[in-house]
C-alpha cells in the first residue's frame, strides 16, 4: 500500500473460511488461509507477505499467483487491490542456470 498504514488497525478476528485450504501460490504451495492469517499477523504489504510466506518466491517468481494473492490480501484489509503495490520485479525474468549466467559470451565491460 502506498502511504501511511497504522499496523494496529482492527481487522476483526481471523475467521476460518471453508476455502482456506486452497493452494494459491502453486510453486511454494501457499494456501489462501495462510495468506489471510498472515494479514492478521500484521503483514499488510505484498512484499511482507512474500517474505513471510514465500508466495511468488518460487520457480515462476509469482507469474501465476501475484494477482490472486493481491485479491486475497486486499479483501482481508478491506481495500481495493489497486492500492496494493506489487512486489518489486527482479531479474532474471526466467530461471537461469548459474553456469549460463557465469558464461558471458561478451560484454563484460560496461
Amino acid at each position: 500500500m502506498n502511504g501511511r498504514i497504522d499496523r494496529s488497525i482492527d481487522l476483526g478476528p481471523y475467521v476460518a473460511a471453508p476455502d482456506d485450504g486452497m493452494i494459491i501460490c502453486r510453486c511454494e504451495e501457499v494456501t489462501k488461509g495462510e495468506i489471510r492469517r498472515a494479514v492478521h499477523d500484521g503483514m499488510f504489504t505484498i512484499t511482507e507477505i512474500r517474505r513471510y510466506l514465500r508466495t511468488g518466491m518460487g520457480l515462476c517468481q509469482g507469474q501465476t499467483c501475484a494477482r490472486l494473492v493481491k485479491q486475497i490480501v486486499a479483501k482481508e484489509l478491506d481495500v481495493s487491490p489497486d492500492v496494493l503495490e506489487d512486489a518489486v520485479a527482479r531479474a532474471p525474468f526466467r530461471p537461469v542456470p548459474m553456469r549460463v549466467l557465469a558464461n558471458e559470451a561478451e560484454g563484460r565491460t560496461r
Partner: protein
Amino acid sequence: MQQSEVLIIGGGVIGCATAYYLSKRGLSVTVIEKKQIGEGGSSRNGGGVRQSGRDPRELPIAMYAVEHLWPSLSDELEMDVEYYKKGNLRLAKTDAHLKILQGLTDRATALGLDVRMIGADEVKAINPYLSDEVIGASWCPTDGHANPMLTTLAYYRKARRQGVRFITGESAQRIVKQKGRAVAVVTDYDTYYAERILVAAGFESNDLLASVGLFVPMNRILLEALVTEAQPKMFEQMLGTAEADFYGHQSTHGSFVFGGSSGIDAYTSDFDRPVTQGMTAPSICRGIMGYFPVLADAKIVRTWAGWIDECADHVPVISNVDEVPGLTVACAFTGHGFGISPAVGQILTSLMTNETPMVNIDALRYDRFKAKI
C-alpha cells in the same frame, strides 16, 4: 500529537527487535518506518549469524547473541526463524588466503572464540561438495545462519502482539529538542512525543540526526545477492571465502542464498532504488562455481541489491547521545548487523532503561571518530 514511552525510528530488524524487548518489559513503544517492515538491509542480507571474522569491538556482541539469544529465538518469537548453528567455513585456495584467515583467527581466539584453521581433508569432511582447489579454511563451529526476513518479521509480529504500535509509510523529518532534551520527532504526518527516542534508520539515520547536530561518518554502498531454485539438501554451514568471492548458505527451503560483488557494483547512477547491475550476478556465479562446481546447473531465480550503511571504521554506532539526553542511536552496521541484531535489541533496551548493557559497548560510541593525525 502522539505519545509513548519509547519512539523508534526505523522498522528494520534492529528497530523491531528493540521494540520487542522493550514492550516485553511493559514499555509503550511506537515504531515509525518510512517504507515497510524490513525494507532495507534487514531483508536483503545473506543471513549470516557469524562471530568469526568480526572486529574485536563487536565480537563480544556476536558471541553473546550466539550463546544466549539465537538458540532460543524461534521459541521466544513463536516462529521458526530458520536458525542453524552448524558452523562457518571461510575458505582458502592459496597461501595468501591462508595468511588472511590465520590473522582473523588469531584475533578472534584471543577474545575467546572457538575458531581454528583446518586443512583440506577436514574441510572436505565438513563439506564434501567443495572444489578440490580449496586447500584450507578457518572453521568456527558455533557460527551459523538464519532467515533475516523471517527474523525481522517475527520480531515485528511478536512486538505488534505485545502492543507495539507500528506505523509504516510515514517519514520522520526532525528531532525536537526542548530544554536540551530530545522529546519528540516530527514526521510528515504528526509529532510523536516520547521519553526516549531511538534512531535506527540505517544510512538515513544521518538525515534525522542532523536536526540535533549529529553526524555518523558512513557511506551508502550497494551490494548484491542472489538465490537459486530449491535444491536437494546438501549442507548446513555458513560459507565465506578469504578473498570475499562470495558468501552464503543453503536455506531451509533448499534454495542457496549467495552474496557477492563484481567489484564495481558500488558505482551506480540510480540513487533512488537499490538496483542490480548486469555484470554482478555473473561475477557472483563465477565466484561460487570456483568453489562449488556442483552447483553449476542450479538455476538463479532472483537477484537483488541493497545498500549497506558502511561506517568509517567498519563497526556500528550503538550509543546513547550524551549531549542530547533521551536520544539513542544504532546505525552504521556496515553490512553485518543481522547476526548481532537480537543482542543489539537487548543492549538498546538496557541503554534506554538506564541499565548497564550485558556487553561492554564503549568502543561503539557515537563520538569516537577522530582525525588520523
